[in-house]
C-alpha cells in the first residue's frame, strides 16, 4: 500500500487505541482511597532517619507514640492511656493500653526503651535526636560522653509501664512526645532483620495505617492496619502519597480529580484558585519564622545601629500580600504568636509608619558613619528558589531607599547552608519551623552556646543566662516572663531580622472533612473522611 493509505491506517489504529485506553483508565472504585500530593519522596520509613514534613505525614500515619495527636493536632492519649508527673516535674510515668503491632505481637514498654536508646545511640546518627535531649543523659549519650545506653533516663519496670526521667522540668516535654522521634519500634523485627526491617515487605507498625507499596519517585501506598486499636473508626481505607515537586503540574492533577489534597501550591496561582476553586486553597498561620541572619562577627554589622537601620527599612507589610501573594503576616518578634499562650516581645518601633521607620533608619546609618558619599554595601545571600528571590529583590529595593547597596547572591541549598555553617555571610536568608510548640525552640536560634543553629553568631551572655535560668523554672508564668525578657533583649539588640511568620499552604477538596487548620500543619489521616 502507499504511504498515504498507511498513514490513514495508523491514525485509525491510534484513535482506537486511545479510545480503549480511556475505558481502561476509568476503572471501578471500591475502597475509599485518599490521594495526597506529598511533594518530595521520603528518604526512609524509619522514624529515626527522617526530618522533613513530607516524611512526617507518612511516618506519623504508620506509627504512634505514647502521646498521639487529635483532629486539631493537640496531644491526646496514644499508646499510653494515662500518665502522671512527679511533684518535682522530673519523672513521667505512662500506663500503656493493650495494643498490637501489625504482625499481632503486643506493643510492650520495652519497645519504647529500645527505640529511645537507638535514637540516642551515636551510631544511629539520627539527625533529630536532639529533640529528646530533655531526657536524662540523652545529650551525653548522643555526643558520646557516656557509652552505656542503659544510663538513658527511660525504663520499663513491667510490660505496660514506661518511666521517663528528665534532666530538668520541661513543660513542653509531653507535647514533644507526639513527635516521631518518640515513637516505639518493633524490637523483635529490628533484631531479626537488621537494617532491612524498614523495607515494605518486612516493616511492622503500630499506627492506624501500614505501608504496602513504595515506588521510589512515584508514591507510597498505605492501607488500614487492622490490628490498630481504633481501626473500626477509620473512615479512609487506603492512602496514596504522591511524589511530585512540580506544583503547577500537581494543581492540574488536583483539578482533574487525581489528588484530593495538595500540601503545597504555586503561590502565583493563589488568586486564581480563590476565584475558581473557592474555599479549597487554605492558608493558615504556622509556627515558623522567615528571617535574615546578620553576621555579628563582621564589621560594620557588629554595630547595632546598622542592624537596626536595615531592619527598620524593611517594609514587611507588603511581603506577604504583594510579593508572595498569599498574605503572610509581618514579623516583628522572634517567636511567632500563638505558641501555647506565650506573649512575644515585639520590636518597640513596630507601630511607626514606614516613612518614619525609613527616616530613623537613615539617621542611624548616618550616625554609624554611612551616607551618600560612603554608602553601606552588603551581600545578601539566599538559596535558589523563586520566592526567596522575589523577597530578596524587594528588600534590596527597600534598602536602596535608605542608601544601602545590595549585592544579591544565590546558591543551591546545600552550598548556602554549608557556608552559613562556616559563618561566611553578611546578611543571609534562613527559616525555622517549630519542632515543638514552645517559644524556646525559636529563641535557641540566637543562643551563643549553640553556634550550629546561630548562623549570625549573636552572642549576648545576658540572653543566654536568661534562657538557662528559664530552663530551670518550673512555674510556667515565671518561665514565660524570663523568656519574654530574653526575647526583648534580642529584639533590642536586633540580633536578627525577622521578616514574616510562616503560613501553611494546602488545597483540600470539598469531599474531605476533618482537615482542620492548625499551627503545626499536622492532619493525621485517622481523623479524615472522604465523601464521594
Amino acid at each position, binding site marked *: 500500500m502507499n504511504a498515504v493509505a498507511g498513514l490513514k491506517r495508523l491514525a485509525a489504529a491510534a484513535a482506537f487505541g486511545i479510545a480503549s485506553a480511556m475505558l*481502561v483508565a476509568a476503572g471501578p472504585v471500591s475502597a475509599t482511597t485518599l490521594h495526597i500530593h506529598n511533594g518530595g519522596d521520603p528518604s526512609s520509613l524509619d522514624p529515626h532517619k527522617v526530618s522533613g514534613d513530607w516524611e512526617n505525614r507518612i511516618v506519623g500515619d504508620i506509627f504512634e507514640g505514647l502521646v498521639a495527636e487529635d483532629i486539631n493536632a493537640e496531644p491526646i492519649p496514644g499508646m499510653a492511656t494515662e500518665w502522671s508527673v512527679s511533684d518535682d516535674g522530673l519523672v513521667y510515668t505512662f500506663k500503656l493500653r493493650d495494643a498490637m503491632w501489625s504482625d499481632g505481637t503486643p506493643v510492650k514498654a520495652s519497645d519504647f526503651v529500645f527505640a529511645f536508646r537507638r535514637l540516642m545511640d551515636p551510631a544511629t546518627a539520627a539527625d533529630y535526636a536532639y529533640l529528646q535531649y530533655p531526657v536524662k543523659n540523652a545529650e551525653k549519650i548522643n555526643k558520646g560522653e557516656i557509652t552505656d545506653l542503659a544510663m538513658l533516663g527511660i525504663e520499663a519496670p513491667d510490660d505496660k509501664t514506661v518511666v521517663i526521667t528528665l534532666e530538668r522540668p520541661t513543660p513542653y516535654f509531653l507535647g514533644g512526645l507526639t513527635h516521631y522521634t518518640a515513637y516505639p519500634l518493633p524490637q523483635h523485627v529490628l533484631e531479626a532483620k537488621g537494617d532491612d526491617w524498614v523495607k515494605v515487605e518486612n516493616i511492622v507498625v503500630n499506627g492506624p495505617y501500614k505501608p504496602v507499596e513504595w*515506588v521510589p519517585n512515584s508514591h507510597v501506598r498505605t492501607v488500614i492496619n487492622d490490628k490498630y486499636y481504633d481501626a473500626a473508626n477509620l473512615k479512609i481505607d487506603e492512602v496514596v502519597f504522591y511524589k511530585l515537586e512540580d506544583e503547577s*503540574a500537581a494543581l492540574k*492533577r488536583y483539578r482533574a480529580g487525581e489528588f484530593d489534597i495538595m500540601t503545597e501550591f504555586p503561590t502565583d496561582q493563589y488568586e486564581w484558585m480563590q476565584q475558581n476553586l473557592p474555599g479549597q486553597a487554605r492558608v493558615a498561620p504556622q509556627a515558623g519564622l522567615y528571617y535574615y541572619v546578620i553576621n555579628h562577627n563582621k564589621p560594620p554589622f557588629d554595630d547595632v545601629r546598622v542592624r537596626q537601620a536595615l531592619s527598620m527599612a524593611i517594609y514587611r507589610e507588603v511581603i506577604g500580600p504583594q510579593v508572595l501573594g498569599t498574605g503572610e503576616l509581618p514579623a516583628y518578634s522572634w517567636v511567632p504568636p500563638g505558641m501555647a499562650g506565650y506573649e512575644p516581645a515585639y520590636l518597640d518601633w513596630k507601630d511607626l509608619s514606614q516613612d518614619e521607620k525609613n527616616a530613623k533608619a537613615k539617621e542611624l546609618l548616618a550616625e554609624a558613619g554611612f551616607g551618600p558619599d560612603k554608602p553601606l554595601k552588603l551581600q545578601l545571600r539566599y538559596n535558589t528558589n523563586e520566592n526567596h528571590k522575589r523577597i530578596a529583590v524587594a528588600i534590596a529595593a527597600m534598602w536602596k531607599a535608605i542608601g544601602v547597596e545590595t549585592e544579591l547572591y544565590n546558591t543551591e*541549598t546545600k*552550598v548556602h*547552608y554549608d557556608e552559613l*555553617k562556616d559563618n561566611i555571610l553578611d546578611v543571609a536568608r534562613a527559616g525555622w519551623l517549630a519542632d515543638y510548640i514552645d517559644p524556646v525552640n525559636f529563641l535557641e536560634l540566637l543562643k551563643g552556646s549553640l553556634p550550629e543553629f546561630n548562623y549570625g553568631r549573636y552572642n549576648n551572655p545576658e540572653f543566654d543566662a536568661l534562657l538557662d535560668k528559664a530552663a530551670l523554672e518550673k512555674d510556667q508564668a515565671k518561665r514565660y516572663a524570663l523568656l519574654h525578657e530574653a526575647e526583648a533583649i534580642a529584639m533590642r539588640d536586633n540580633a536578627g531580622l525577622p521578616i514574616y511568620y510562616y503560613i501553611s499552604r494546602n488545597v483540600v477538596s470539598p469531599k474531605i472533612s476533618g482537615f482542620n487548620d492548625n499551627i503545626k500543619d499536622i492532619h493525621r489521616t485517622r481523623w479524615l473522611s472522604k465523601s464521594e
Partner: protein
Amino acid sequence: MFGYAVKRLLSTIPVLWIALTFCFFVLRLAPGGPFDLERPLPPVVRANLEAHYGLDRSLVEQYFSYMGNVLIGDLGPSFTNDDFTVAELLAIGLPYTFTIGGAAFLLAILIGVLTGTFSALHRNSGVDYTIAAVIMTGLIVPNFLVAPILQLIFGVQLAWLPVGGWGNGSIAFLILPVVVLALPHAARISRLMRGSMIETLGADFIRTAKAKGIGGTLTVRRHAIKPALLPVLSYLGPAAGYLLTGSLVVENIFGLPGIGTYFINAALNRDYGMVLGTVIFYMVLIIVLNLIVDVAYAWLDPRVRAR
C-alpha cells in the same frame, strides 16, 4: 561482525574507567556535602553520619573502595534514600524510563519517517509546507511548555486522559508523556528523512529502477528507503540516549518514577553514589547505542559492507 563488536566493546572499558575516575574526583570539588541541610546537624551526629558512609576516610581510600565495589556490581548506598541502594533505585526506575523512552523512540521514528517520506514524495506542494510548519512547531516549542498545555487540554478540560502519574500502567497514562517526549525528535527525523529521501531519489540506481519499469511505491519501499535512512540512523544513536536520559522534564511534570530525576537531584543533593551510578549507566548506554548504530549501518547499506 561479531568479533568486531566484541573488540569495540572491550576497547571502551578503559574509556569508562577514566571517565568514572574523573567524575569521582570532580564531584568532590563541589562545595557542600550530602549532610548540609536546612536544619543544622550537631557536629557529633554529622561525624557519625560521615563515618557510617565511609566519608571520613581519605579520598584515595574511598576511591579504591568504590571501584572495587563497582567491579562486583555494588554501586553503594544512596545518601538521600536510606532504604534503598543505588543499584536498587536504578533497577526500579529503569523499566519506567525504558518504557516511556522506548515508546517515544518508536513513535518518533514512525511519525518522522512517514511524514518525511511523504513530504519528499510531494515536495514543495501545499501539503509539504503544512507538514513542515507543524513539524517546526514541535521542534521549537520546548517540552516543558508543551507538557502543561497538553495536560490542561486533554487532562483537565476535556478529561480524556489522566493528567499524570503511572497509575495501573495502562496506555492512557503513557500517551501524553510519550507524545511530549517524541515530538522534537519526530520533527528532526522528519526533516532529516525528507532531505535524505530527496537526495536518494535523485541517485543513479533509482533511475535504473524506473527505467526497468518498477512502479513508484515499490521503488520507494524496496530501493529508496533503506539508503535514505542512513542519516536518520546517525541521529538515532544519540537520540536514543537523549530520550532515555532527557526524560527528566517529562518525568517531573507527569510524576513518572523513572531514573531521569536522579541525574539532576543526585548532583544537587551531593548523593555521590547515585551520581556515579547514573554516570555509569549513561556511559554504558551511549557506548552500546553507538555500537548498534555502526552495526545497523553495515546492514542497511550494502556499499558499507562491501568496504
